[in-house]
């Protein structure tokens, strides 16, 4: 043996040489190594410091349960904290750093905590940092956080991508050891869709490192043969590097595939990780069993590790944990370690078996084991028995069952959709594992014969804690919970397994108690005079192992956080220099600045251009719903508080919809195109909600009506053409109609042909208060039509206007919008109470008649303007009677919407005011607590501009 690399054997490729650094020091390893195995092969045992005492720690396990060897991997945006060295596949150029130490792993000043450990008992933080209370946030917590932390997150953006994907299968097999392989093979040969997933970098499970004999071959060779066949079956998907992390309702499993964690930088176009949702008709848990540590003083000195991990490193990675070892066990399985290590030329200086009354009483060594019970050695292999990996089967609330025979918790029966086999089910014989695999993989009688194999009997006498040993005996390595903490928790009244967990932090580290929990439960049970079965386990929850935020987010970050919705006139808006605003998912043109203009200057110019000539606005985002059918009119009567069945063909009508509780829900114009055909418009914000509401009202309340509906929002590019020159502009495009008050009166709606061959819908409706039209054209023509309108209006100085100008004009006109239709107002509050029909049943009718909703003292919409006409007002200010101090009792209402009015040359707004309509002309006090000022304002009619609507009908 050169150093600690065993000369022959193992699944490493000795022809490769991979350079890597650990804490800046250069090492080499081989393809097939993990970071942990490469460090062991280089004689490095010290890999981390513990959380509380900063004790030197070495690797304990060879798998995902590793609590000690947590390292920071990579640098800059790719830095990842708390990766388990046991799961990190070595690659050339890998950079790893130890964590939770200062100034270095070798010399950690905070290890002094260990000397003062008598005060750092369980509950120490709770007891000590209580007083004074004000110290907690500013002094105690920052100090504690500095001393006790696991790694640091990168502050740079992660340059890699993450993905999500769905998968479906008949049989999901979790774990690729002998049981899982047999299950996958049986189901695969039966022809059903199989997914075989394993968290390891290579498939094969324990057969990658245990010496077994199956079908006359080595277990490894047998596994390779099976895997080759599985890979050739088109109905089988193999997923190595994929951890099934959770079991969810509907037999859905979450999986994290580490697609490119084994290389420095992912291959081009490939994600780093992929988050899978696997829908499985049936799943098989073949996750194996986890070996438990034994609890004795010094069981955390680097060099002490699980017996199975020691032979894992030796057999699979050709890395010897030591030159002279001691084996400590309470069961038969550690005998494999003795045989295997001796075969590799490692001296086994003592086997200490609790079943013979033997104990480890003293471990000598600081950063590496030096001797055990006085016998010199440099590593200790321990085996405290095996815990079936039941986690996934308990994710939906079922509790595992204590099995005395194997001294472990076995999975509960959760039904035929999810069954356990192999050692995950507590079957400790290889033949049982293979037979279980055949059973679980059998589909409709299509089965296989389990191969012959060599069995090794398993025997255990539980042994939980060498109380008489010297030094701290750790239960939870990462969190430094010791065996003594558990009786203490019991004495102090926290003996319930869930309380003890919180009190001692046992099982709360990144390994979530995979190694320590059963030992903890046994010691707790003893301390409280209960059996282990009575004590039970803490709750198992997803995630089995940590999942990165990147994987949860997938590709939906930054610009792709949510989909972007663009209107059919988007290109035209861009050409016109629009500044866009996000409105829900939509990008709406907010204003169209010219050189030197800010938003207000631009919007002011747009309003003036529209009110003096003509303006063009993209209103495509308004919801448009095609409503057809014999009963379409009747149906609309149910939806709106006003009546639509009487609407003439070719006419539009403004409507208000209420919620069933009587509060206003949405508004818009709906036009009748034919006897059995309407087109409804909704507000942009409520378009989707109104569609769902329509579907509910029809399917649930009035299914007898003959009515059909579909969203046509996106079918039409819709433009408002407003202003005294709107008609003249439009006339240049319209081919088949002389526009006049006779052919196209206010609230007319009709088809027209424009620009030769485009069939468009023309509506004479107005939100701006001007003589205005809305023109709807099929969306593919939108940009071209908008450009034509701009040309046609050029002689009238046509201006595109955005939602800011739109909003100014509607406030000038007192038209309600989102600020007033805010989920608290009735139609009456909005000044539209007369629209509420008394002759028909409609949504919200009954509840709108409640006294409270008809109370004249309710806040209703009024206009408001500052007494000092030069003042800027803001929405949100509360209204008070002059002389009243601000209080909830004195509150009279608030300002909903404000705008700078270019036409009236002042700020004005709309407000909700108690009994407002009777208070026109009153001077009120506006209290704006948010901005810390108050001022006087005059209550006025909400229609600030053109109160007689002369412009509308001009």
């Amino acid at each position, binding site marked *: 043996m050169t150093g600690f690399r065993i000369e022959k054997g193992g699944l490493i490729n000795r022809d490769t040489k991979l350079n890597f650094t650990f804490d800046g020091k250069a090492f080499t390893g081989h393809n097939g190594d993990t970071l942990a195995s490469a460090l062991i092969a280089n004689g490095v045992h010290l890999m981390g410091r513990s959380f509380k005492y900063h004790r030197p720690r070495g690797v304990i396990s060879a798998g995902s349960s590793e609590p000690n060897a947590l390292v920071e991997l990579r640098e800059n945006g790719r830095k990842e904290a708390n990766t388990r060295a046991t799961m990190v596949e070595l690659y050339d150029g890998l950079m790893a750093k130890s964590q939770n130490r200062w100034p270095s792993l070798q010399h950690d000043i905070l290890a002094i905590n260990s000397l003062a450990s008598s005060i750092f008992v369980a509950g120490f933080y709770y007891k000590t940092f209580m007083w004074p209370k004000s110290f907690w946030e500013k002094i105690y917590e920052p100090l504690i956080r500095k001393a006790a932390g696991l790694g640091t997150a990168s502050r740079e953006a992660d340059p890699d991508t993450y993905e999500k994907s*769905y998968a479906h299968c008949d049989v999901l097999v979790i774990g690729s050891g002998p049981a899982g392989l047999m299950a996958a093979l049986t189901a695969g040969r039966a022809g059903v869709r199989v997914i075989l997933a394993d968290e390891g970098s290579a498939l094969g499970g324990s057969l990658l490192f245990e010496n077994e004999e199956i079908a006359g071959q080595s277990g490894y060779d047998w596994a390779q043969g099976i895997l080759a066949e599985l890979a050739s079956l088109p109905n089988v998907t193999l997923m190595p590097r994929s951890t099934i992390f959770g079991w969810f309702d509907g037999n859905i499993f979450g999986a994290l595939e580490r697609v490119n964690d084994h290389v420095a930088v992912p291959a081009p176009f490939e994600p780093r990780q992929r988050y899978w949702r696997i829908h499985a008709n049936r799943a098989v848990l073949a996750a194996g069993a986890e070996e438990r540590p034994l609890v004795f003083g010094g069981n955390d000195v680097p060099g002490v590790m699980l017996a199975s991990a020691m032979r894992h490193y030796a057999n699979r990675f050709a890395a010897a944990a030591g030159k002279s070892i001691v084996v400590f066990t309470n069961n038969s399985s550690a005998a494999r370690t003795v045989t295997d290590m001796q075969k590799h030329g490692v001296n086994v200086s003592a086997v200490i078996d609790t079943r013979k009354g033997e104990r480890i009483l003293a471990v000598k060594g600081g950063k590496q084991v030096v001797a055990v019970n006085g016998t010199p050695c440099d590593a200790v292999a321990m085996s405290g028995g095996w815990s079936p990996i039941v986690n996934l089967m308990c994710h939906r609330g079922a509790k595992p069952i204590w099995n005395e025979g194997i001294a472990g918790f076995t999975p509960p029966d959760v039904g035929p959709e999810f069954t356990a086999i192999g050692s995950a089910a507590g079957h400790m014989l290889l033949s049982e594992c293979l037979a279980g695999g055949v059973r679980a993989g059998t589909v409709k009688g299509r089965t296989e014969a389990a191969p012959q194999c060599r069995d090794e009997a398993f025997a255990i006498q539980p042994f939980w804690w060498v109380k008489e040993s010297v030094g701290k005996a750790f239960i939870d390595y990462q969190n430094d919970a010791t065996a003594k903490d558990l009786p203490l928790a019991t004495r102090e009244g926290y003996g319930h397994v869930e309380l003890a967990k919180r009190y001692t932090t046992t099982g709360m580290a990144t390994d979530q108690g995979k190694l320590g929990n059963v030992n903890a439960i046994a010691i707790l049970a003893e301390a409280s005079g209960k059996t282990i079965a009575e004590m039970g386990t803490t709750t198992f929850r997803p995630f089995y192992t940590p999942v990165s935020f990147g994987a949860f987010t997938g590709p939906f970050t930054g610009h*792709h956080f949510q989909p972007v*919705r663009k209107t059919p006139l988007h290109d035209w808006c861009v050409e016109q220099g629009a500044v866009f605003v996000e409105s829900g998912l939509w990008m709406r043109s907010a204003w169209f600045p010219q050189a030197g203009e800010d938003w207000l200057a631009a919007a002011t110019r747009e309003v003036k251009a529209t009110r003096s000539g003509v303006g063009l606005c993209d209103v495509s985002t308004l919801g448009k719903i095609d409503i057809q059918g014999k009963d379409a009119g009747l149906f609309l009567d149910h939806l709106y508080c006003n009546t639509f069945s009487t609407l003439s063909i070719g006419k539009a009508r403004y409507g208000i919809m209420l919620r069933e509780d009587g509060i206003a829900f949405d508004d818009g114009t709906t036009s009748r195109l034919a006897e059995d055909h309407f087109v409804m418009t909704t507000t942009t914000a409520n378009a989707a909600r109104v569609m769902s509401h329509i579907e509910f009202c029809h399917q649930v309340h009035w299914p007898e009506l003959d009515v059909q509906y*579909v969203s046509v929002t996106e079918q039409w590019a819709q433009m408002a053409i407003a202003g005294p020159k709107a008609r003249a502009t439009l006339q240049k495009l319209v081919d088949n109609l002389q526009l006049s008050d006779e052919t196209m009166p206010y609230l007319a709606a009709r088809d027209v042909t424009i620009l030769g061959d485009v069939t468009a819908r023309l509506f004479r409706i107005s939100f701006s208060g001007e003589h205005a039209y809305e023109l709807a054209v099929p*969306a593919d*023509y939108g940009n071209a039509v908008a450009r034509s309108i701009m040309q046609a209006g050029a002689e009238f100085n046509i201006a595109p206007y955005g939602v800011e100008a739109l909003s100014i004009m509607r406030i000038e006109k007192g038209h309600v919008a989102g600020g007033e239709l805010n989920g608290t107002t009735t139609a009456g509050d909005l000044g539209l109470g007369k629209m509420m029909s008394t002759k028909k049943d409609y949504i919200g009718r009954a509840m709108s008649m409640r006294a409270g909703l008809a109370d004249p003292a309710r806040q209703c919409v009024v206009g408001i303007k500052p007494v000092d006409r030069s003042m800027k007002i803001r929405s949100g200010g509360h209204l008070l009677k002059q002389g009243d101090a601000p209080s909830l009792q004195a509150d009279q209402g608030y300002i909903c919407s404000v705008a700078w009015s270019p036409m009236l040359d002042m700020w004005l707004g709309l407000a909700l005011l108690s009994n407002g309509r009777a208070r026109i002309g009153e001077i009120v006090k506006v209290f704006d607590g948010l901005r810390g000022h108050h001022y006087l304002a005059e209550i006025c009619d909400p229609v600030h501009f053109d109160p007689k609507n002369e412009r509308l009908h001009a």
Partner: protein
Amino acid sequence: MLRTSPLARVINPGRFGAGKGVPGVTLSVVHPITMSMVIARKDQAKKMERVLARLRKGDVHWAGPDQYYVINAPYTDLKQKLEGLASVSDQSHGRVMFRIAGAKARAVLAKGTPVDVHEDVFPIGKSALTQMAHVSVHLTRTGENDFTLSLFRGFSESFWEWLTSQSAEFGYQVS
């Protein structure tokens, strides 16, 4: 007037993504399309379906209970043929249709939809209404490894960005 696709500026024909050989998927925008939503009038579903089955021109795709998208049949003809049997609504401009074809088409779709599109359970001609990348889509299998997807026009550019990014690892051809 000539119809302009909302993706006219966005679509760039060529070979993109990983590798240089046969692309895993071929992506294209089907434009212009003629597409109507057809919904049966009350108690007329059976009669409507008989008329749809006899259509000489047009592909009929299931699009919900008693609802179909009819592709490549002019709206006015359809409206006339289904008078009294169905409500017809023109969606030719309102929806954008993509074609996704190739050996990796299913793998790309699986990154978006929870619908199982395996050939055994999603035969040629089957349609599904589902969501992909937070957008509602209508998905149809049109061939061995061929699928079409249609969705609201306004999302098409955003969706295209997602679709191409998810296809990149397999290599994709835009045609």
